[in-house]
Each structure stands twice: as structure tokens, then as C-alpha cells.
């Protein structure tokens, strides 16, 4: 087996680390990590004893040369390149895994379904934490139901690190900013519709260590994926809500309000400048310097929760599946990075071992066998559990809702 990891950033590095772990990922495979910044790729390669090479994904010839001869491509570059990488996979006949397409790109990627089927290869879209594990959890819940009416993904992030750091970034800052400025899309009455950024605020009672926290709508792939995957089961409502640590949220919100979330160039001293890219350059410069400083031990957490509603044998059910992730004790990765970087490695091995049999362009809930996947998660410090809510005195929650919603 040969696996190519595109992108030697935060997630690419974790994918490689997991794939090279002899205990978690037994067996021999050839691994190549490629980046536009060869030094970054080399740094990962030297640490893990894998191969490194330069790759500019915007150049189709270079891209195809890089992945030619590989069995699986794990795409960890910025999601804007997803379609280009998928087309290259079609050309060379390699399976494809990515970390998500922030709704719009994901929808575009689904259009390649026919071609992937014809080539007898699989593309697993959005195989990080959320989308990713979140979708497999939704798939598990939906599998327990005959009919699915609603599926809601909620991600809670907490950071308890005692730190002097000004800001810690668990995943692509570009994506963080887009999540704060782009219109979120939800499935409502069976239709995908845009809603106002920052709307839908709701107090969620997450499992510890997050506890009570505010979450709101945010652009994500899951509503588009759930709408497609659970169409036959009759899904009407789907959404994604995000809850970030209040302090982090305030700071990101502040930068967004200042206009640093925008790609529209502004004239600074006569030169057109992209505010978003400037801010990212400033923050990256900060992080590079900060990473080498001594600071409090990392201590963060993600709680992934999916709530799926529907019926089984005519009886209404509400199924909640949750996974709690803490800072990795094995590797020291932040929870928010660990839970995103590990899943592509697990799924690549599932493809390798023949556990993923579907072909075409698919969401994780359509092709990943949930229980074997969850077992792999637990080996990597990410336990998953489920709460099933069933009415006993009738067939639905209608009367219960009526009683609980009366004014106090």
C-alpha cells in the first residue's frame, strides 16, 4: 500500500504520526508527505521516517506526478483545492479522503460521484472530527431508525490550558474566520437554506468537561451531507452548531468585526492588500514564535454530539451520540487537532483492510462501519457513547413536549 498525504500542516502531521504508529496502525505501508513548503514536509518526514516531496496542488501535472502509483490520497490542504485533488485521483485511480469542504465545495465534490463509481474507487468526503466522526455517529443513530426526520450536529470546544498565549488555533485559521463570516446553511422543511451568520444561539448542556455553553449556526458540510445521505429516510431538518470557548470566540469575533475575515482587498499605502491573508500571516508569525516558548501544559477538549430524531417501528426516538476528546496524553496534540487528524488514518486503514466496500463519492455516514470505527477511536483516547430517548407512555414525544414547555 502506498499512501500520499497532501499538506504537511497541523492535520497532515497528525495523519502521518498515526499511520506510522506501529501499535495503532500495524502493518507496512509506504508513506509520502507532500507540501508546497518542502521544509515543512521534510520536518514531518525527518521526525517520522517517511518520504517527503514538494507539491503545488494548483498545478495538475505536478499533482498527478506526486500521487501517481499511490493507493490512497489523504488531502489535508485548504479545502478550496478539494475538487482539483479529486480529479487528479480519478486520473491516477487512487482512493480519496479529505477533511471537509465547508458546505459549498462539498456539494460540488458530490458531482464527481458517477466518475468515482465508474473507476471503482471511493472518495470519503469530510473525514475529520466534524465533519467526520460526527457523521459516522449520525450514521450509527440513523441505522437504528426506520425513518429519520432530523439530524443535528453540535460541536463544543473548551480550552482549560493555563497559558500566557494570546490565542491558540486548533485548526485552519482561514476556516475559523470563514465559519464566522460566511452564511451558514441548514436543512429546513426539506430544503437547504442560508441563515444569518451567528444566528440560532442556543444554550447547550454538553458532557463534562465542557458543560454548559452557547452554540450557534455556523457554515459546515454536515447539513448538506445529512440531507443527501438520509434523503430516503425522509430527513426534513439538519443543522450544524458550533460552541467555542467564550474568550476565543470573543477574540475571533473581534477580528471578524474589524474586517479581518474578508478577502476583499483594501488599498494600504497604494498597494492592494487582502485583510484575511494579512491577519493569518500575522497570527502564523505569532504562533511560530510562541510554539518555542515554555508555557502551561495543554489542556483542551472537544465534545462532538449528534442528535438524530426519527421513528423505529412506529415509535418516536431521539438518539444522541457523543464523543469526548481531551488533549492527547500519548502525543500531546490539542484535542481539537487530534480528533481531526486521526480519522483519515483510521479510514485509510479501513479502506486498506477492505472494511469500506462502497464506491463513489460518499459521506462518512454512508460508508464507514460505525462500531469498528468507534473501537479505533477509543484506542486513540476518543470514547463514544449513545443515549436513546424513547417515550414509554405513548408513541411520540408530543405530550411530553407539551408538559415540559409550559411556562414556569
Amino acid at each position, binding site marked *: 500500500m502506498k499512501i500520499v498525504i497532501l499538506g504537511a500542516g497541523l492535520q497532515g502531521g497528525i495523519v502521518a504520526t498515526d499511520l506510522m504508529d506501529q501499535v495503532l496502525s500495524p502493518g507496512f505501508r509506504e508513506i509520502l508527505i507532500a507540501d508546497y513548503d518542502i521544509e515543512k514536509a521534510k520536518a514531518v518526514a525527518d521526525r517520522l521516517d517517511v518520504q517527503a516531496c514538494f507539491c503545488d496542488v494548483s498545478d495538475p501535472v505536478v499533482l498527478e506526478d506526486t500521487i501517481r502509483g499511490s493507493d490512497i490520497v489523504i488531502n489535508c490542504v485548504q479545502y478550496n483545492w478539494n475538487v482539483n485533488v479529486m480529479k487528479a485521483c480519478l486520473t491516477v485511480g487512487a482512493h480519496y479522503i479529505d477533511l471537509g469542504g465547508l458546505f459549498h465545495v462539498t456539494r460540488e465534490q458530490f458531482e464527481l460521484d458517477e466518475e468515482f463509481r465508474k473507476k471503482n474507487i471511493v472518495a470519503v468526503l469530510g473525514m475529520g472530527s466534524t465533519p467526520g466522526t460526527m457523521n459516522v455517529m449520525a450514521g450509527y443513530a440513523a441505522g437504528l431508525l426506520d425513518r429519520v426526520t432530523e439530524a443535528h450536529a453540535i460541536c463544543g470546544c473548551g480550552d482549560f490550558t493555563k497559558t500566557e498565549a*494570546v*490565542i491558540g488555533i486548533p485548526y485552519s485559521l482561514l476556516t475559523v474566520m470563514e465559519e464566522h463570516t460566511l452564511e451558514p446553511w441548514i436543512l429546513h422543511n426539506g430544503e437547504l437554506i442560508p441563515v444569518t451568520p451567528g444566528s440560532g444561539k442556543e444554550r447547550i448542556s454538553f458532557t463534562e468537561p465542557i458543560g454548559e455553553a452557547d452554540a450557534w449556526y455556523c457554515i459546515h458540510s454536515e447539513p448538506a451531507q445529512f440531507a443527501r445521505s438520509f434523503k430516503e429516510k425522509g430527513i426534513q431538518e439538519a443543522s450544524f452548531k458550533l460552541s467555542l470557548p467564550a474568550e476565543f470566540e470573543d*477574540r475571533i469575533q*473581534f477580528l471578524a*468585526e*474589524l*474586517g*479581518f475575515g474578508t478577502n476583499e482587498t*483594501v*488599498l*494600504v*499605502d497604494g*498597494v492592494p*492588500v*487582502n*485583510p484575511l*491573508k*494579512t491577519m493569518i*500571516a*500575522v*497570527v502564523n*508569525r*505569532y504562533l511560530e*514564535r510562541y510554539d518555542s516558548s515554555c508555557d502551561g501544559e495543554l489542556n483542551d477538549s472537544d465534545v462532538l454530539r449528534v442528535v438524530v430524531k426519527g421513528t423505529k417501528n412506529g415509535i418516536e426516538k431521539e438518539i444522541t451520540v457523543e464523543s469526548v476528546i481531551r488533549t492527547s496524553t500519548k502525543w500531546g496534540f490539542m484535542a481539537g487537532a487530534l480528533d481531526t487528524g486521526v480519522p483519515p488514518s483510521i479510514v485509510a486503514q479501513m479502506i486498506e483492510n477492505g472494511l469500506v466496500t462502497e464506491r463513489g463519492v460518499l459521506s462518512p455516514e454512508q460508508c464507514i462501519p460505525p462500531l469498528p470505527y468507534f473501537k479505533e477511536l477509543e484506542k486513540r483516547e476518543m470514547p463514544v457513547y449513545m443515549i436513546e430517548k424513547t417515550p414509554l407512555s405513548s408513541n411520540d414525544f408530543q405530550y411530553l413536549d407539551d408538559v415540559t414547555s409550559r411556562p414556569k
Partner: protein
Amino acid sequence: MKVIVLGAGLQGIATALDLAWNQNIREITLADIDLDRANYVAELCNQKYGNKVRAVQCDVSDMEALVSIISGHDLVINEVNYYFNCHVMEACLIAKVHYMDIGGLYVETIKQVKYKEQFEKAGLIAIIGIGGTPGVTNVCARWAADQLDTVDTIDVYCGCDDWSGSTKALEVTYAIETIMDEFYMKPIQFIDGEYVEVMPRSGGKVIQYANPVGSMYSYFIMHSEVGTLPEVYKDKGIKNCTFRIGFPDSIKEKLEFLHGLGFSRSDDVIVDGNDVKPVRVLKKMMELQTEDPDATINDCDVIKTVVFGTQNGQTVEFELEAVCRPVKEWPELLGAQVYIGGAPAWAAELLRKGVIKGSGVFAPEECIPPEPFFSEAAKREIYIRVSKKILLGTNDWEAARKKEFINQWI
């Protein structure tokens, strides 16, 4: 007197309005690199006070153009970024025009005093750092020093607060570049007779400012006062001179965050192959914030100058304070703009009257007679109050001060 104001930004607008309001000043030129901004400010002044202000485009970095634009004026009030101070002074020497600015953040201030002989020879006056602080605070120090036989310590404080209602994410009362520089630079303070570099934002303590600011945590930053007062009062035996600033927590958190991210660093980042100075982009983004039609202005700077020394053998402490708020005449200005941008206009009036005279390069404490200057301030609703503290029965201030510490025996 013909006055040219360079820079139509936060302070240039206040200077232009003050000069235009002053019936004794007939002709004002307002120059900015952005002609639209200069036109906007000139129009505002002309609507209020008749056709007195003419707007021109000027790139101060172009020496030839600068000299030609300022020629024919009697006074240049320089309110572009302080990086250009020496450059504009040189243009004034060529064009034979008097010069004022609103501060050089110490680093430029100490370069600027070196032009003394050249200005003397040319028969011109340059007043450096005649804004709010430095500026009004220096004149306050002068007033107190004049009462004293010896000067031991001059501590300057500025406590800022803001109750303005606005939907903008971030608003500041003076140039964001200067604020970021103040955050980044290791401030130089004059302690025990020596100039020492301290850590940025060290020396923090809670200072009691006049109401409505009240008590506020304030710390060392780089400032011009420390560059001139110890030199001017060397003969009176000065041993300490410091500057501390206090911001309200809400704004301090935002500024510290931006500083922490590195918006205060002077080196460029590379964006799409271009070298970009982060603070310039920050400034632009702040300018582009949507105007809030329902915004209200209600800020306050309390500037406080505390001078400690001896008078007829007795140790005394003078504390001069001004509460700077928005004023009725200029509802469009923040209180901070009224005194920072206003001060050079008050000095211009005194120069016109011949109350300020001489040639050379001067700090405000060297050339501005305090009382006439304070009268000009009072005409703009800025009132300087002074209190004198003496110890009765002893001269041991150190022992008396320790009684104010919770842990008094340290």
C-alpha cells in the same frame, strides 16, 4: 498669521477647527496625503467659521513638494505620524517657517533637540511635543517647577476612559501606530538620575485620577515628556521623571490582544508576495469600519502631572490635573482630540500675540508661559487645577507614603 496644518487625521481635524474658530487667525492651509480627507475637514471648518481653510494634497515624504507647500506660511503644525518629525523640521529650515508638533515618542524627541542651533541661526522657533501629553503636561510641570527651588521628581499620568456609544469594534483616541509603538517599545524612564530602559507596561499601579475616571491601573510607556523634562530641570536637581498611562479594561484587552498577535511589530509580513506592515492594514481596517449613525461621543482623558520638590526649605508636592471631555463648540470631537489636537492651536495663538518668543528648538516647558496658556485652555472648557501638599511637623515624605501601603513595613 498664516498657519499650515500637516495631517487631517484624528488630531489635525481638531487643530483645524480650533484655528478656524480663532478669529485672530485668518488663513489656514490643511494638507493631507488623502485630499478627500483634507477637503472633508476643510469643508467642515468653512461651514462653521467662513472660508478660512484651504485643503491641499501633500505627501510629506517628498521634501521638494513639502518645502514648496509650506513656503509662504508663518507656522507649520506637524500632525502627521511622528516618524516624519525631523524631516518636516528640515523642510521648515529651508522654507523659513516656524514649527510645532504634538510629540516624538521620546525616540524622535531626542533627535529633534539637536536642531537647536540651526533653528537659532535661522531665527525660527520649533516647539516640539506641544499636544496634550506631551504638551499640556509639560506646561503643567513648568508651572510647578517655577514655584520650586529644587525639583526632585516629575511623574506624569494619563488616565483614559470612554462611555461613547458606538457599534464599531475598535475606536482609539490617538494614532493606532503610536499606540502599538507604545505597546512594543521598551519605555525609557528617568530613575535615580539615570535614563533606564524598563519592560513594556511595567511599573503598574493604581492611580487616583479625578472623576469621572477615578482609580485606574496605569503603567510605564514610552513618552516624550521623559525626553525633555530631566534635561530642562537638571539645574534644579531632578532625579526622577516617569510617564504612565491607564486604559479602561475593555479597550486594554483589545489592544493587548492585537499587540500580542504582533500587530505592533515593525517588521513586515509577506502577503501574496507583497511586504505588508501589519499596523498599516489594521489602521485601514479601523478606518473602514461602518459609521454608526447613532454614535454618541463621551470620552475622558485625565492628565495629571505630579511634581515633587522643595520650596523655601520645605518639601512640597504639586499635583496639576485637567479633566478633558468633549466640548460644546465641537460636538464632532472626542474630548481627547480637543486637548491633544487643540494644544498646538493655543500655542499658535500665543506665538501670534508674541507671548511665546525666541528662536531655537524648545520643549513646551522651556518657552510657553503657563498662565496665558492655561487661559487659552480655559476658553476651550479645559480647566487646569492644582493642589499643593505639604507635610506638617516633618519633612519625611517617604515614611508618610509608606503608611498608604497595605504592607507598610516593606
